[in-house]
């Protein structure tokens, strides 16, 4: 193998798959997909340093799950090439996260106690670690695969933990050096605007952010109350962004109150990003709305958050079901009022984060679902009550939610003195002359690139989507930053970017068998009395223990967590996490298919109890157990670490069995004898070997069988029919001894199943790719069972090894050598002899209709200068489809001409 790897004329394309084959013998075009290895083969020295800090461990495929390997690994010690590879797959959490934060990475780092590194890793994607860790609506948790075990991970709370433990002591960042001369203006300091600023400044651009309000942070600062997001957390994260070199101009509205206009920005800056949010509250449009005591949630929360004095009454009704409504209600409660939320749909339709709704209810807020105000009543200019009407849910509207319709004569009255309206917000676009708005009153921008129709102007966040959520705003800001960079560098806005990530539902994750359930941790909360009367933070965060335990529940769906620890250790600088898959186009004359076999999976035959005891092994597992590099260093031990006293070996598991495969797998008898010999020699244990027939088919094999008989192995002729796991862990094997003609059983410490070989599960796809046939057993079909064992029906394609049928190593080597010889013989000739069954055009009959051109599967026919069909004999395979299509019998497949076939038909009928 080593020699093949080093040979100058052999190029190994490892970690690759053939995806397309075109052409014909001597002229194949093969397209190969090279999976990203994330390691530069030319640089990797194979030293193995990188493995040390990798936090992810999974079962080793090579050791058939008996040992663990890291996410960065060398498939096995003698692997060719000897370089490492990173096993990286999509994970539901990172795919679902709108900002695509490497969730599993920071969870793995937290699990190892590397909190600084976890924080630094999240900060590579976003500066809002403590903020998102508190207010994110965490769609990732809905998709976390751990939900299939018991409950999703507390991903959001873990992010918060990383911030809480590591941020206070993390050194402040140094300003980023300017790389590019261009400057970008950003309007709005919400999560969208500041995320774009964060990414752009780190790329090396000059960034100025304009903010109308006296504080930065957008709705994070003036919408979300302090009991959910303490002011110092947000401020610290904004300071972090500023420290990198972002300039923030507060109290500077764009396009109004004397501030610069959009035109000014377009002139003075090289690009503009509009992230103005959605702050204009929608009106109720009911009588009495102008009474004093009617407030809007955005104004109410802004005033509260800015520390201004706010006056509300004793009995407050909040109208709406979004986050702003819940926040307004919980804030009013904290100011000492009695609060009722009135929402026109049911609880399930509420757009607010469900946990927030629960918290509001716990704190004593009343809910009126399926109700809406019809008028606000007043006396002497003072509010006295609000009249509502009950609603029921009708047909779904364009948002997919069922539209509420009023129930006639169901009015009722609530006695209130304050009404806080929170039924939605729109962006205030009036000051931004020149931009385009949608029918919804939001800004028009491409949802992928964030480009607006105005040259050099981009937009994102709530201003484009309408009120959404912080993480979507972060994601929009990041996308806009990348687009602005491309725009300024004259690059295509789309090329090579991934806008659609795999859907969580399409991501296959194998949940390890026998995984132990572990309850999801929840954060402790402030005592209720304090919650109701102060604006202190309600959720208290994880303790270190809780965080570590929670992190340990992660299933490592993506395997590689992208924590970047390996990159830091690799001295050769060979690791590149951004590698993408590549396609290589090869021109080859011949193809040898050597795709191998699949080991029979004994769980398909439940009578053997495979998987129910760790001491029931497949032949392959036993091979690994006895290997010096294996889990026990080559010693034969039970899972309990004891030397077995009695061992049973069962032949033909999954072979010669109508319930599995009918074929004989050929190699199992001999490997089972080898196993028996090893067990006798190394442990002296009693060995019972259950066999149907002993097939010692090769040179020296019968002699070996005799020797094993002399070893004292007890041979029982008859199929092992059942393995039962006894309560004490012992294994009871039953069989029928066909020599004695009666059932027998043996109680043993270890069972080795002689699992057979079968065609690989992807054999069908491979067969189609290379134009191969398959025999009834599923293996690839050779051209002739006796005379042409390595050729296939597709000329120039040969078979080598077990993809064609079960065989042992010497036979595989022989078969492969034969395939090589056949391929060489073909190539050294340099010409191919094709079969004479090709089509031929009788020019005088050809009308040039072109039907044959369309019919030919090989494009072997074309119309020549005279408008007549012409066959390229090298391409024609002689299928004759053209002849059947030709309306004037002008094209004849030689040896299968019409006359010849008709003669045959007439002949057989005589």
């Amino acid at each position, binding site marked *: 193998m080593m020699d093949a790897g080093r040979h100058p004329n052999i190029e190994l394309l490892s970690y690759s798959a053939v995806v397309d084959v075109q052409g014909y013998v001597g002229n194949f075009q093969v397209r190969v997909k090279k999976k990203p290895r994330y390691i530069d083969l030319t640089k990797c020295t194979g030293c193995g340093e990188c493995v040390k800090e990798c936090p992810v461990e999974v079962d080793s495929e090579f050791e058939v799950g008996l040992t663990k390997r890291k996410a960065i690994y060398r498939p096995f010690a003698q692997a060719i090439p000897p370089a490492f590879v990173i096993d990286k797959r999509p994970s539901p959490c990172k795919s679902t996260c709108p900002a695509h934060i490497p969730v599993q990475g920071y969870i793995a780092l937290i699990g190892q106690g590397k909190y600084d590194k976890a924080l630094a890793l999240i900060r590579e994607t976003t500066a809002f670690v403590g903020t998102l860790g508190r207010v994110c609506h965490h769609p990732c948790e809905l998709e976390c695969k751990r939900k299939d075990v018991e409950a999703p991970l507390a991903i959001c709370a873990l992010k918060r933990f990383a911030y809480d433990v590591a941020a206070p002591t993390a050194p402040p960042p140094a300003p980023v050096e300017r790389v590019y001369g261009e400057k970008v203006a950003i309007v709005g300091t919400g999560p969208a605007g500041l995320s774009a600023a964060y990414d752009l400044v780190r790329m090396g651009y000059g960034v100025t952010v304009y903010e109308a309000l006296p504080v930065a942070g957008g709705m994070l600062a003036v919408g979300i109350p302090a009991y959910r997001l303490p002011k110092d957390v947000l401020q610290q994260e904004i300071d972090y962004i500023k420290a990198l070199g972002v300039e923030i101009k507060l109290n500077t509205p764009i396009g109004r109150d004397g501030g610069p206009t959009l035109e000014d920005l377009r002139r003075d800056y090289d690009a503009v990003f509009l992230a103005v949010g959605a702050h204009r509250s929608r009106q109720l449009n009911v009588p009495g709305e102008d009474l004093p005591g009617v407030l809007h949630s955005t104004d109410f929360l802004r005033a509260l958050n800015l520390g201004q004095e706010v006056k509300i009454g004793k009995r407050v009704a909040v109208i709406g079901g979004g986050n702003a409504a819940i926040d307004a209600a919980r804030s009013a409660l904290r100011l000492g009022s009695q609060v009722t939320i009135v929402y026109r749909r049911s609880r399930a339709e509420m757009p607010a984060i469900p946990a927030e709704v629960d918290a509001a209810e716990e704190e004593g807020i009343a809910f009126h679902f399926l109700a809406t105000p019809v008028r606000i009543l007043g006396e002497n200019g003072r509010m006295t009550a609000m009249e509502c009407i009950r609603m029921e849910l009708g047909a779904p509207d364009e948002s997919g939610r069922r539209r509420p319709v009023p129930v006639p004569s169901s009015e009722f009255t609530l006695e209130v003195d304050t009404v806080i309206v929170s039924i939605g917000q729109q962006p205030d676009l009036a000051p931004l002359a020149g931009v385009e708005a949608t029918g919804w009153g939001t800004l028009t921008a491409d949802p992928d690139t964030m480009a607006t129709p105005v040259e050099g102007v981009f937009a994102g966040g709530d201003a484009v989507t309408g009120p959404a959520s912080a993480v979507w705003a972060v994601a929009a800001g990041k996308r806009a930053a990348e687009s602005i960079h491309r725009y300024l560098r004259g690059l295509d806005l789309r090329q090579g970017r991934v806008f659609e990530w795999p859907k969580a539902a399409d991501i296959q994750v194998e949940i390890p068998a026998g995984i132990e359930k572990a309850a999801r941790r929840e954060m402790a909360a402030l005592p209720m009395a304090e919650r109701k009367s102060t604006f202190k933070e309600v959720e208290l965060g994880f303790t270190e223990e809780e965080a570590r335990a929670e992190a340990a529940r992660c299933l490592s769906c993506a395997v590689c967590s992208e924590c970047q620890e390996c990159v830091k250790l690799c001295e050769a600088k060979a690791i590149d996490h951004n590698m993408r898959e590549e396609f290589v186009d090869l021109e080859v004359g011949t193809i040898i298919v050597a795709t191998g076999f699949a080991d029979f999976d004994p769980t398909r035959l439940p009578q053997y109890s495979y998987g129910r005891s760790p001491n029931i092994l497949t032949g392959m597992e036993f091979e690994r157990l006895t290997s010096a590099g294996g889990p026990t260093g080559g010693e034969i031990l039970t899972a309990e670490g004891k030397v077995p006293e009695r061992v049973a070996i069962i032949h033909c598991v999954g072979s010669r069995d109508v319930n599995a495969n009918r074929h004989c797998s050929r190699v199992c008898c001999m490997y089972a004898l080898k196993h028996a010999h090893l067990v006798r020699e190394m442990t002296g244990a009693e060995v019972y070997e259950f066999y149907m027939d002993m097939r010692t088919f090769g040179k020296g094999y019968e002699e070996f069988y005799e020797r094993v008989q002399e070893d004292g192995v007890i041979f029982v002729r008859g199929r092992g029919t059942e393995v039962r796991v006894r309560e004490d862990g012992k294994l009871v094997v039953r069989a029928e001894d066909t020599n004695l003609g009666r059932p027998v059983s043996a109680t043993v410490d270890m069972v080795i199943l002689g699992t057979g070989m079968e065609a690989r599960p992807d054999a069908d796809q491979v067969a189609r790719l290379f134009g191969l046939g*398959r025999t009834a057993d599923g293996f690839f079909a050779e051209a002739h069972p006796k005379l042409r064992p390595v050729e296939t029906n597709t000329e120039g394609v040969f078979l080598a090894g077990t993809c064609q049928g079960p065989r042992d190593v010497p036979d595989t080597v022989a078969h492969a050598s034969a395939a090589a010889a056949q391929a060489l013989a073909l190539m050294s000739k340099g010409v191919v002899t094709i079969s004479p069954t090709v089509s031929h055009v009788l020019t005088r009959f050809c009308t040039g209709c072109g039907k044959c051109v369309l019919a030919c*599967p090989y494009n072997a026919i074309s119309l020549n200068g005279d408008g007549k069909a012409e066959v390229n004999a090298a391409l024609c395979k002689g299928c004759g489809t053209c002849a059947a299509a030709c309306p004037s019998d002008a094209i004849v497949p030689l040896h299968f001409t019409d006359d010849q*076939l008709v003669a045959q038909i007439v002949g057989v*009928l005589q």
Partner: protein
Amino acid sequence: MSGDGFEPRIVAFLCNWCSYAGADTAGVSRLELPPNILPVRVMCSGRVSAEMVLKALLSGADGVLVLGCHIGDCHYGSGNHRTVKRIPLLRRLMTYMGIEPDRLRLDWVSGAEAGHFAKITTEFVEAVRALGPLSLPLREDLDTG
């Protein structure tokens, strides 16, 4: 109808790569096959033109069976895509000519499906036996040649 000793004669067009191989496998496996099947090997089921089918019927066959590779498995990639369009058209044409369309059948047999080959041929022979001999008044006079 089968009581009168009528033995239908069936021309079976077998593509070289799948169905002919399937027939071969059936023979090697010593499966019982109806002797009524008269095989004609073609390279691909796509080679079987309307003319071939009609010629067989006019020359005395009581039924015609066209067997090819399963869709997707055609040795020539798409040869059988043509067959799949052609045969239903031919069956309609046969209806016009006053021939029961069920005397023509298209099916797929892979090289490994010996049992399937035996089953299809046996079934088809029985179906044609039930239809009785094909009587074409003009059989002798008609000639497509």
